[in-house]
């Protein structure tokens, strides 16, 4: 299926007071998709969003919107709307006037504005709230008004800057579902910014992992989660064991064999014998038990168990002193094993992914 490109960023660079904020962002966004930029604070994701909105101008590079170079356009000319992190509702206007703001600027007839505002309030489940002032709303309600104020303008792209950051966990989950529903219903392209991996995985069609002003990896949530391409991506999303291993060769099934933790482990990927590589292994992919099973190539000892609600985290110690973190339903394979139990350990070779050639610096 040929997808229509709605927005592309080409080699965007931006510095603030000599500090590099963005170092060559290239990004293509398709019409109707939900794209999330995920990264820690200070990674440049908000700057990227502001450059798309026209609130910052890039030092270098181009912003192409709907086939037109809008790099030097004023923000009001772009037909892109933003939901700000702080909501930025106009405190001197009631909800109705906040939502109608963009429509009034475009000289939409009064009756039409009234109708559309009411539809929007309906859509964000705040019917009858038109007369309220922003100060009379709760955080979640302000959030909905901010969304309504943006989408009423039918933007070609909606930019959302950590819109759920200020809400509590329950409300955040509920709003995630609602946002996704809105996005699918309206068919608007969403560019969403968050540092919350769960949010990104739940809602996105594609995720771009950002760090230090670069997009490290771009892909579907599954690709990002199952096949992280960097140690950063592996550690930022989900929980991973980072293994420093040395390639020894290949087994009969074509898996890469590596020496690690006093034994031989299996992984997927390419490597020359003798090469040092860094692997990422999701904590929930590790299997262990008292009895050896097919593919259990390591042995070790249970160090301790941490119970955290629906999840059990277990630390295993290998003979070489390395530790493996395992998370699961608390049953491993044979149920919770007491500390000190000798166990056999293994995993599906496809789950151990090479994220780096060589080993990370010890100093890090």
């Amino acid at each position, binding site marked *: 299926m040929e997808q229509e490109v709605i927005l592309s960023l080409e080699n965007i660079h931006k510095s603030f007071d000599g500090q590099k904020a963005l170092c060559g962002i290239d990004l293509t966004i398709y019409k109707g998709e939900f794209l999330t930029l995920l990264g820690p604070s200070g990674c440049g994701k908000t700057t990227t969003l502001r450059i798309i909105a*026209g609130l910052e101008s890039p030092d270098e590079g181009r912003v192409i919107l709907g086939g037109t170079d809008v790099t030097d356009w004023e923000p009001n000319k772009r037909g892109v709307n933003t939901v*700000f992190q702080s909501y930025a509702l106009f405190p001197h206007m009631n909800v109705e006037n906040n939502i109608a703001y963009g429509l009034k*600027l475009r000289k939409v007839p009064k009756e039409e504005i009234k109708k559309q505002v009411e539809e929007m309030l309906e859509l964000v489940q705040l019917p009858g709230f038109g007369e309220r002032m922003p100060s009379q709303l709760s955080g979640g309600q302000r959030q909905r008004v901010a969304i309504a104020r943006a989408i009423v303008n039918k933007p070609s792209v909606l930019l959302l800057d950590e819109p759920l950051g200020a809400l509590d966990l329950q409300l955040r989950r509920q709003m995630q579902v609602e946002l996704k529903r809105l996005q699918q219903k309206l068919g608007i392209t969403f560019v969403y910014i968050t540092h919350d991996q769960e949010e990104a995985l739940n809602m996105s069609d594609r995720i771009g992992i950002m760090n230090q002003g670069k997009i490290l990896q771009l892909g579907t949530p599954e690709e990002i989660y199952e096949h992280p391409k960097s140690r950063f991506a592996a550690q930022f999303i989900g929980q991973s064991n980072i293994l420093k291993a040395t390639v020894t060769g290949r087994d009969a099934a074509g898996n890469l064999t590596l020496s690690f933790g006093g034994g031989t482990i299996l992984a997927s990927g390419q490597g020359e014998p003798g090469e040092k590589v860094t692997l990422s292994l999701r904590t929930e992919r590790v299997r262990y038990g008292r009895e050896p099973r097919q593919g259990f190539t390591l042995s070790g000892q249970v160090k301790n168990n941490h119970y955290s609600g629906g999840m059990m985290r277990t630390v295993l110690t290998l003979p070489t002193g390395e530790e493996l973190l395992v998370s699961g339903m608390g049953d491993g394979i044979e149920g919770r094993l007491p500390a000190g139990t000798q166990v056999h350990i293994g995993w599906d070779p496809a789950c151990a992914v090479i994220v780096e050639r060589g080993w990370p610096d010890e100093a890090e």
Partner: protein
Amino acid sequence: MKRNKNRPPITLLPMALWTTVFVAVPLVYVLGLSFMKKAATWGVVAEFSLDSYKNLLNPVYLKVFAQSFWVAILTTVFALLIGYPFAYFTAKLPKKHRSLVLMLMLVPFWTNSLVRIYGWMILLRSQGVINGLLMQFGVIDKPLKLLYTFGAVLVGMVYALLPFMVLAIYNSVCKVDWSLVEASRDLGAGRAKAFFTVTLPLTMPGVMAGCVLVFIPSVGLFFISDLLGGAKTMLLGNLIKNELLSAKNWPMGAALSIAMMAVTLLVIRLYQHFSRDQNLEGLL
């Protein structure tokens, strides 16, 4: 030991004494004077009379009132037109430059205003700096009459009171959440539209406070119109001064003062109402 919570602390006593002696007593004295009769030669006759208040309606006095308000309104308008952009751009400067600009404005403000008004006389008189420069560059042949005009009074008033306007607006511009302005731009507003629909309404408390802080003193200031207007522009302040010092009509001067205070209070009431600033915090 129980303390009576309604009793104000003893430390407020000096303040209360000060206010009583220097504010309340003179006020009551002026109020009392305004209801007395002028003595034939000097002072007052302690006899109740409403003559002075009836006199307020005399067209001569009404004209001074009207002129005073006209000057006060013009002063406020010009101070606002000059003060707003100044305050706005100062507040948008990088932090380290802001205090420098404010200092440059405030340092002359701390010198005696009479001295500064004499400075304006030197600038404005017919052989003064402005006329000299204009003639030097051949813009004019004969000196313009600048001093002792209504315009000169206005210039002096605006000059003297501008800092009040600037500081009040500066404070409110500093408090503006600029993401709101960005939001308005993002929603399709041009720079001007964003300013008039978002920035200006958000800085309205400062604008109102500034207007009150300029309007009220400009009704009462007398030495500026004396010096720059050549006593031709009679304002309320001048009138009160004349009644008290020259005409020696103390009851009339007192009645005019009370009338002026009534107007001032009315302006403050209006300010309280429209700015929803009940405690007058914006005026501090």
